[in-house]
């Protein structure tokens, strides 16, 4: 366990990708089975312990510490595992340091009544670092800056092969990956690729810049709408026994199919689609807010399926039947995509239409008015245009010179800082979550601020330090982790807030909800009385509903 803890600790502090790769590869090379395979499983999200949850850790620490001191400490540290690892009372003469395989075995098999005692005995025996690693293992989110892809790349380097080769066989393997290591070390055969619906790395675009336009000729390009949903890869395949396997991956390769049985049901052809996951009701694509109701769920109710029907708007086709199309140019793939969609003949899978244009002026006009340029009633869900070279192959990652995004211009509004809360993760212990408001006429007739949104990025690290100091020096009240900051007509801090869209919302006191708000500028110079009024926001709301 100590060696695994040491690896996680080193990785957490190592910023450089190559150094991370070297650390993992070195660990895998010098650590025996099954420890190394279990570590690899931990880094690729392959260890799931149904009975071991964050709640167990909370209960254990609650038995051992003062609740107020725990709450203050957690608020300060911003990470449950780390807080508990640091606060855990030292027990001299505790039993031996546990081994990783025993820990994994225990977490998998121990019953709900036995587990708390077992975990506590391990925590007693480990030091701060060991406790932290154990708790990270239990909560399942390591947050050490290592993606599953990076860990697989490091594993692949043991055999001097590319990560994609490991990826191909990955879904047929199980921790502790004895067959994989045997193959990588030349001691065994290549494991069989048994997964008929694997994830393939997604191709991403670059924001278009002023200089890009003149370098490109519209005749070599395809433009389409950039839909404001979730980028997905919908993959379906047939196992040797004839059973269909369908997965819906997020762009990072997380399988979210369980929450979208309606989509899974529609994918009846072998292939891999690249598209946008949306909610479509009464022939109209709904806002991102509506889609959000269906995200981050492990399962879905019948009511949800009925009221928030999911839809795939397809951009690209990676696999058609058995054929891998990724080397083909986009113009070829587009033809195959059209035929594929036609064969599927599903009302919830359609083609993302291309935008007809022959000059940049025409595309700029379309981007400014999607409704008039073909998007019709769906235009509320358009967040800009995609521009793609007709000859671009489908490449993993964000290759230069193939695809660009040209977003609609953000809207700006001046708001006054009202409340601040400490952040988590990278920003832990800094006041970095800001709630801001605009002016309206209050009940007594005097102007008052009403909160309209919350943002936790858009500023630099240097600005964060200044904002943090500002919050501490201008605190009016404390409500647990939240501080109320001075906000009067004369005294307060103005943010220029950028956002992508605005919805009516009954859940917000102001009646409006911002999409994707962020701090675009800190107006140290601007007095709060010159911030915007709610009427300015209301004017931006869509006319209907």
């Amino acid at each position: 366990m100590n060696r695994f803890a040491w690896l996680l600790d080193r990785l957490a502090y190592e910023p450089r990708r190559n150094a991370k790769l070297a650390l993992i590869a070195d660990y895998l090379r010098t650590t025996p089975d099954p420890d190394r395979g279990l570590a690899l499983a931990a880094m690729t999200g392959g260890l799931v312990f149904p009975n071991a949850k964050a709640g167990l850790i909370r209960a254990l620490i609650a038995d051992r510490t003062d609740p107020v001191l725990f709450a203050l400490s957690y608020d300060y540290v911003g990470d449950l595992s780390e807080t508990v690892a640091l606060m855990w009372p030292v027990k001299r003469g505790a039993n031996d340091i546990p081994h990783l395989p025993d820990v994994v075995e225990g977490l998998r098999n121990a019953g709900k009544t036995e587990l708390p005692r077992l975990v506590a005995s391990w925590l007693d025996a480990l030091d701060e670092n060991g406790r932290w690693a154990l708790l990270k293992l239990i909560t399942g989110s390591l947050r050490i800056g290592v993606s599953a892809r990076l860990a697989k790349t490091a594993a692949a380097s043991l055999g001097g092969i590319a990560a994609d080769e490991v990826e191909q066989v990955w879904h047929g393997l199980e921790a502790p990956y004895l067959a994989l290591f045997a193959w990588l070390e030349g001691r065994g055969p290549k494991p069989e690729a048994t997964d008929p619906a694997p994830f393939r790395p997604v191709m991403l675009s670059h924001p278009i810049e002023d200089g890009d336009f003149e370098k490109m000729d519209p005749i070599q390009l395809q433009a389409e709408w950039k839909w404001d949903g979730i980028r997905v890869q919908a993959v379906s395949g047939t196992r040797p026994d004839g059973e269909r396997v369908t997965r819906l991956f997020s762009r990072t390769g997380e399988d979210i199919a369980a929450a979208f049985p309606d989509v899974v049901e529609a994918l009846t052809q072998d292939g891999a689609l690249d598209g946008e996951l949306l909610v479509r009701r009464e022939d109209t694509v709904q806002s991102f807010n509506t889609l959000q109701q269906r995200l981050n769920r492990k399962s879905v109710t019948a009511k949800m399926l009925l009221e928030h029907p999911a839809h795939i708007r397809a951009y690209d086709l990676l696999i058609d039947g058995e054929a891998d199309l990724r080397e083909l140019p986009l113009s070829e793939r587009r033809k195959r995509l059209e035929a594929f969609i036609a064969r599927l003949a599903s009302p919830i899978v359609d083609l993302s239409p291309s935008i007809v244009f022959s000059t940049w002026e025409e595309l700029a006009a379309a981007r400014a008015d999607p409704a008039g340029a073909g998007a019709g009633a769906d235009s509320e869900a358009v967040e800009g245009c995609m521009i793609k070279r007709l000859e671009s192959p489908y490449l993993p990652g964000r290759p230069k010179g193939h695809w660009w995004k040209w977003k609609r211009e953000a809207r700006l509004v001046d708001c006054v800082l009202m409340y601040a809360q400490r952040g988590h993760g990278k920003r832990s212990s800094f006041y970095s979550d800001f709630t801001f408001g605009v002016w309206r006429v209050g009940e007594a007739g005097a102007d008052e601020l009403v909160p309209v949104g919350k943002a936790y990025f858009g500023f630099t690290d240097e600005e964060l330090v200044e904002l943090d100091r500002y919050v501490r020096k201008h605190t009016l009240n404390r409500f647990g982790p939240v501080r109320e900051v001075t906000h009067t007509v004369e005294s307060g801090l103005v943010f220029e807030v950028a956002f992508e869209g605005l919805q009516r919302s009954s859940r917000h006191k102001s009646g409006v909800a911002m999409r994707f708000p962020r701090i675009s500028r800190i107006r140290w110079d601007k007095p709060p009385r010159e911030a915007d009024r709610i009427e300015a926001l209301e004017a931006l709301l869509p006319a209907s509903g």
Partner: protein
Amino acid sequence: MRPSDLLIPTPAGLWCPPADIHIDPVRPVARALITHGHSDHARAGHGAVLATRETLAIMALRYGEGFTGERQEAVPGETTRIGAVDFTFMPAGHVLGSAQIVVESGGLRIVVSGDYKRERDPTCAGFEPVTCDIFITEATFGLPVFRHPPAHAEVGKLLESVRLFPERTHIVGAYSLGKAQRVMALIREAGYERPLYVHGAMEKLTDFYLSEGAALGEIRKVVAAERKTLGGEIVICPPSAIQDLWARKFPDPVTSFASGWMRIRARARQKGVELPLIVSDHADWDDLQATIRETQAGEIWVTHGEAEALVHWCGTVGLKAKPLHLVGYGDEGEAEPVRAELTGEGADVAGV
């Protein structure tokens, strides 16, 4: 005499009306008593300053000889009477010259801790607990997540890394006053004999420590043009310099930082630190509690830091306690202008 007649928190700092003096004032005042030389406690521009010989010397080094109108040396353990109030400076174990101030009048004794630590420090006199009615303590690390490991073990991590990466320069960020020299002394105690290299901004203070007899071994100033040749060496610099372009000119540098804040992973990552060293010149959670008990004070006032948690703990053990909410000290982040150190003004924060 009521406690609130003897010491009152004001925006300028703690004020003692019967003597009309301020302790560690953050604004210019007529008469100031200064606990130690960190720039958030020791500021220039007062009419008169009473402090230990070392603290007066440090202030003169940082601000120039004209840092105050008049100056008076406080000898640790000896009492100075001002008005009807007796003031006694006692070692605080924080940095060279650091002191607690015992304030006594009409049978009431209050101890103002300043910043302090209980762990051994080869570069300054150790903390001496003084029994009192009211103990006014700092709480920079006043949360139960802060339990500092032994400093020599942390320095051991640094030397181990130097052995592992003999071609890379180890750049250690450390506050110019106190932390830097303590780290140097600990490195020497661990048997490391090569020269230690220091950033120009900490040369004056390090020379002062040497002249006061600190066993720091051979110290060399980093010459900009020679940075490329310092692979395998240890370089000590102000915290603000570790992410500067200045630090990038060394061969494949390992970024390290010696601070109590390094206990929190996110803090280390925010600063781009690869090798965090948890070395603090402040009392940790256990030592704050132990010290409060040793003073036998019935009432605890908390000046700055994580006051809320320490006040809560006092309540759970039956001690009367309150936060003073003094502003201008350390703050809890490293949000103060450490950058000023590079200009030689030495505005480092409380040596956390």
